[in-house]
C-alpha cells in the first residue's frame, strides 16, 4: 500500500534532500523536458490558444461564482439519471461514505481509475483499515502502489522512476498483489506494459466495485467525464456492477457544450496530445449496460475555504493538467515529493495552503515560498491561473498570520527596509555607508561587505555558500551624481 505524506518536513529541507538524488534529477529533467517540448508543439499549432485559455477561465469562474446553484442543479440531474448523490464535507466523511458502500455490497476489493480526489482524501489507506483492498489500475499508479511509494507528479506519478526500477518493482511485488510478473521480464517498455496488462486484467474481471474521480461534471445533463490514455479507466467504468465517483465540487462545468473548450486544452496541456485516447462519459445508470448502481460523492475538503479567498479562488479553475509542473524549474529539480502533498509543483504550492489554511503548520506555510516567481507556470496554464500573484498573496497571508509575535529574522529585516526606503534620508545613509565600505581594503573590506547580508542571520551563509558577493563600488550612483552632476 502506498505511503502517506503526513509529517513531511518543510519544503527547503525536503528539497535539499531531493537535490542530492542524482538519479531522480536525471529522470525528472529528462521526463519534464520531453513533455514540455511535446506540449509546446501541439499548443503552437492551435491558432486560437489564447482564446481557449480565456474561455476556459471564464467558464470555471462562472461556475465558482454561482457554485451553490450549479451544485444543486448537478445533484438534481444526477438523481434524475439514477445516480445516488452523497455530500462529503471532508476526507473523513468521503472515505466513510465509500467504505460504507463497499461494506453494503460485501466486497473486499475495488478497482480504481486514477483520481487525484481519492488520493487527496487518502482513500486507499482508509479502505485498507476496513479490510478492503483498493487496486490502482493506471500503469504509473500501479508502479507507485507496488513500490510502496509516494506519487511525485499529478499525471505521471512515477515520473521519478526509470525502466530498470520499474522492472524490479514488478518482479518483486506483483506476486503478492495478484498475478505475478512473467518469467524473464525485461526493462523493455512493451514487455513492462504487457506485464501490467496481464496483472490488471485479472483484477478487472473479478472486481464488483470500481472507484473513480471525474475530470468534469456537467451540471445540466448530470454527466461525469473521465479522460485517460490507457483504457484502464474505461474498464473500471463499465465492467463492475457498482461505480463510486469521488468528485471535487469545483469540477463542474455548466453544460455539455463547455466540454468543447476543455477537451481541446486538457490533452494538449497534459500529455502533449491533440486528443487523449479514451474519453468516457456516463450519466447515472443505463439499464442496458455498464454499472447498475452509480454513486457520486461531492467533496468539499477545503474547497469552500479556497473559494472564500478573493485572490486565491482562481486556483479552483485548475483542471489538473500538470503543465505547470512540467514547466516549473523548481519542480524539475526537486520532484513532487518535496511538496509533501498529492498536489505538487506550482499548483500544489498554492492549492495546499488555500485548502488547508495558512499559519497552521510550517510545511504548508513553506509552500508559497517554493518558487522563484519566474512565471513559467502562468504562461502554460490552460485556464490562466496567475500562480505567481497567488503565491505572493499567500506569502502575505503567511506573514500576516505570524504578525503580533516576535518578528523572525526576515520580519526584522523587512521592518528595517520599511524605514530605509520610506524616505530619502535613511536610504542615503545606507548607500553612503556602502560607499565607505567599498573604499576600505584588505580583510576589513570582506568583513564589512558581508555585514550588509548579516542583517538576516543565516542569509549571508545561504548566499555565500555557492556565490561570491559582488565587490562594492567605491562610490554609489547617487554620490557620483552629486559630485559630477552626471557629467563624466
Amino acid at each position, binding site marked *: 500500500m502506498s505511503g502517506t505524506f503526513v509529517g513531511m518536513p518543510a519544503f*527547503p529541507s525536503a528539497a535539499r534532500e531531493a537535490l542530492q538524488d542524482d538519479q531522480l534529477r536525471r529522470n525528472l529533467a529528462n521526463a519534464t523536458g520531453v513533455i514540455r517540448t511535446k506540449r509546446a508543439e501541439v499548443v503552437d499549432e492551435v491558432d486560437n490558444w489564447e482564446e481557449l485559455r480565456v474561455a476556459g477561465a471564464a467558464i470555471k469562474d462562472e461556475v465558482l461564482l454561482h457554485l451553490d446553484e450549479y451544485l444543486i442543479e448537478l445533484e438534481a440531474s444526477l438523481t434524475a439519471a439514477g445516480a445516488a448523490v452523497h455530500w462529503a464535507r471532508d476526507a473523513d466523511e468521503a472515505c466513510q461514505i465509500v467504505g460504507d458502500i463497499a461494506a453494503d455490497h460485501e466486497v473486499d476489493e475495488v478497482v480504481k481509475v486514477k483520481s487525484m480526489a481519492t488520493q487527496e482524501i487518502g482513500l486507499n489507506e482508509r479502505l485498507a483499515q476496513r479490510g478492503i483492498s483498493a487496486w490502482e489500475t493506471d500503469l504509473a499508479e500501479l508502479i507507485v502502489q507496488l513500490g510502496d511509494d509516494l506519487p511525485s507528479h499529478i499525471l505521471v506519478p512515477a515520473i521519478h522512476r526509470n525502466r530498470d526500477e520499474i522492472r524490479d518493482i514488478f518482479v518483486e511485488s506483483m506476486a503478492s498483489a495478484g498475478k505475478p510478473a512473467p518469467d524473464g521480464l525485461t526493462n523493455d517498455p512493451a514487455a513492462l506494459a504487457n506485464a501490467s496488462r496481464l496483472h490488471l486484467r485479472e483484477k478487472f474481471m473479478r472486481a464488483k466495485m470500481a472507484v473513480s474521480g471525474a475530470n468534469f461534471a456537467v451540471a445540466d445533463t448530470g454527466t461525469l467525464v473521465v479522460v485517460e490514455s490507457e483504457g484502464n479507466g474505461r474498464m473500471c467504468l463499465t465492467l463492475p456492477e457498482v461505480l463510486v465517483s469521488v468528485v471535487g465540487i469545483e469540477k463542474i462545468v455548466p453544460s455539455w457544450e463547455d466540454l468543447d473548450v476543455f477537451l481541446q486544452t486538457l490533452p494538449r496541456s497534459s500529455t502533449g496530445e491533440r486528443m487523449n485516447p479514451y474519453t468516457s462519459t456516463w450519466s447515472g445508470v443505463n439499464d442496458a449496460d455498464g454499472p447498475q448502481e452509480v454513486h457520486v460523492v461531492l467533496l468539499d475538503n477545503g474547497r469552500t475555504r479556497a473559494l472564500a479567498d478573493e485572490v486565491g479562488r482562481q486556483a479552483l479553475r485548475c483542471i489538473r493538467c500538470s503543465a505547470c509542473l512540467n514547466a516549473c524549474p523548481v519542480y524539475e529539480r526537486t520532484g513532487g515529493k518535496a511538496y509533501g502533498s498529492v498536489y505538487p509543483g506550482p499548483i500544489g504550492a498554492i492549492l495546499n495552503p488555500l485548502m488547508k489554511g495558512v499559519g497552521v503548520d510550517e510545511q504548508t506555510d513553506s509552500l508559497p515560498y517554493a518558487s*522563484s516567481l519566474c512565471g513559467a507556470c502562468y504562461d502554460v496554464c490552460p485556464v490562466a491561473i496567475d500562480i505567481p500573484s497567488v503565491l505572493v498573496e499567500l506569502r502575505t497571508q503567511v506573514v500576516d498570520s505570524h504578525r503580533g509575535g516576535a518578528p523572525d529574522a526576515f520580519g526584522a529585516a523587512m521592518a528595517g527596509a520599511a524605514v530605509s526606503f520610506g524616505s530619502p534620508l535613511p536610504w542615503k545613509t545606507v548607500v553612503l555607508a556602502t560607499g565607505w565600505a567599498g573604499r576600505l581594503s584588505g580583510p576589513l573590506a570582506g568583513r564589512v561587505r558581508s555585514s550588509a547580508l548579516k542583517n538576516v542571520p543565516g542569509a549571508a551563509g545561504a548566499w555565500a555558500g555557492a556565490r561570491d558577493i559582488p565587490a562594492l563600488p567605491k562610490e554609489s550612483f547617487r554620490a557620483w551624481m552629486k559630485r559630477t552632476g552626471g557629467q563624466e
Partner: protein
Amino acid sequence: MVTCINDAFFPETGKAVLRLLQRLGVAVDFPEAQTCCGQPMVNTGYIDEAVPAVRQFTKAFAGYDAIVTPSGSCAGSARHQHKLVAERSGEVGLADAVAEVSPRVYELSEFLVDVLGVTDVGAAFPHKVTYHPTCHSLRMLGVGERPLQLLRAVRDIDLVELPAADQCCGFGGTFAVKNSAVSTAMGQDKIDHVASTGAEYLVAGDNSCLMHIGGMMSRQSTGVQTIHLAQILASTKVMAQ
C-alpha cells in the same frame, strides 16, 4: 529610476543609462528622493512594509513623462504590484498617486524601442556575448525580442544564442536564500549553458539576476563576465578603442 541595487552596488549601470539616454537626446533627471520600488518586501509577503517605499516612489517620480529603469523586475513591480500595495494600505490618495505614476514606468529596452523608436543606438562592443532574458522582463513585462533587437544592432558584437535561455536562473529575490539549494541548482544549469556558448560576457537586463549568476561564475572561476544591457548599449567605438 536607477533602482536601489544599482544605486548601491552597480553604479556603472546607472551611469551607462544616463550616458545612453543623453546621447539619444533625452533630457534625463535623477530625482534624489528615490529609494526602492518595494518589491523585496512585497515578494516576501511583507506588503505593509512596502507601503512607505511605494509612497516615496510616487512622490519622487510624480510629474515625469517617462520613468525609465534598467530593471525588468523593478519595472514589473511598479506596474503590477504598486496598485495592490496601495489598495491594501487604504491610505487616502495613494492608489490615485500610483495610478498616475506606474503606467509611465518603462524598462530600458521598452523605452528605447517603443517610446524613442530606435533599435540602433550607435553602440559598439567588440566581444562575444550571450543574452539571458530575465523572467520578469520576459514574462511579467513581455519585453520579448526588444533587448535582442538592440543587441543585434550593436557594431562588432558577436552575439551567440544561449541554450534554454528562457529558463529561470534561480535568483528569485529572497528565494535565493530561503531555498538556496534549489536556487543554486538552477543557477548551475544556467552557468553550464552560458559556458557552453564560449561567450566572454553574459548580458541581461537585471543586475539582481546577474549578481546571482555572476556570483556563482566567479566562485567557480568560469572566466565569463556579467554585464548589464545598458553598459553594452552605452559603449561606443571611441570607448572600445
